[in-house]
């Protein structure tokens, strides 16, 4: 086994374990912590794929920014325990189980049909396209339009956030 496949197994195991713990823990803050751990495992997986930029962004944006908001919201809502939210077998749960099952089937189907071509996807080219320099030169030329639209999206999000919070501020 190469070092890379060992690392892959380690990160995958951590990712799966933290994902399981995330959904089974009672305390929402602890769940949030496991989600952060899960993001770190994901970042590790990206690293084994030589996608360093994506790996760092995963931590910087998801673990470092979005999860801060999650933790704030959990604290703000003051959910001491999810016991108060407990509910019986409602149609929501049935629906969620159905969707999850469908997704699982889809993943299995994809893996069954295209398993052969998966391993050769990581030749020298992968190390090239994962770098920041490569992303920089593509993003601002070929993918220019999506990039510029992102700024509009972000501005819209800013306005939306202000509007939502303003009601409470006044």
């Amino acid at each position: 086994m190469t070092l890379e496949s060992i690392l892959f197994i380690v990160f995958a195991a951590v990712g799966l374990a933290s994902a399981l713990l995330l959904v089974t823990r009672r305390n929402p803050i602890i769940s949030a912590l496991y989600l952060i751990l899960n993001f770190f495992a994901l970042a590790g997986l990206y690293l084994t794929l030589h996608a360093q930029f994506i790996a760092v962004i995963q931590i910087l944006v998801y673990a470092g920014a979005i999860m801060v908001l999650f933790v704030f919201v959990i604290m703000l809502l003051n959910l001491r325990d999810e016991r108060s939210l407990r509910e019986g077998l409602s149609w929501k749960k049935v629906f969620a189980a159905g969707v999850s099952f469908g997704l699982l089937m889809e993943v299995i189907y994809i893996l069954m049909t295209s398993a052969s071509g998966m391993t050769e996807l990581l030749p020298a080219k992968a190390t090239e396209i994962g770098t920041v320099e490569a992303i920089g030169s593509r993003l601002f030329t070929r993918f220019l339009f999506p990039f510029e639209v992102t700024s509009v999206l972000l501005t819209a999000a800013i306005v939306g956030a202000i509007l939502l919070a303003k009601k409470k501020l006044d």
Partner: protein
Amino acid sequence: MMLAAAAAFAVIMAKINEIVGPRRETDEKVTTYESGMEPVRTARERFSVKYYMVAVLFILFDIEIVFLYPWAVSFRQLGLHGFVVMFVFMFVLLVGFVYVWRKGALEWD
């Protein structure tokens, strides 16, 4: 590797205390500190929505910075084109920033 070593160090240092340190728990000692008064209710209260606002704005501007990094690194290759492109991007976001400012979401009083 550094991450693992740092984590190991952190755990060892925190746990060594539990082994070496004394453990004499009294009722008074494990009560929450509140300047010598009996604690009034719990600290798990709701707090100002402003902290939430800061977190939301942080995410949005953080994403902007994430876009700036690859731009800065390949700035020399991109040249004038790159500058104009980023200027447009920043301008749209600046409009959002000015909006936030004018709406008073940055005021802390």
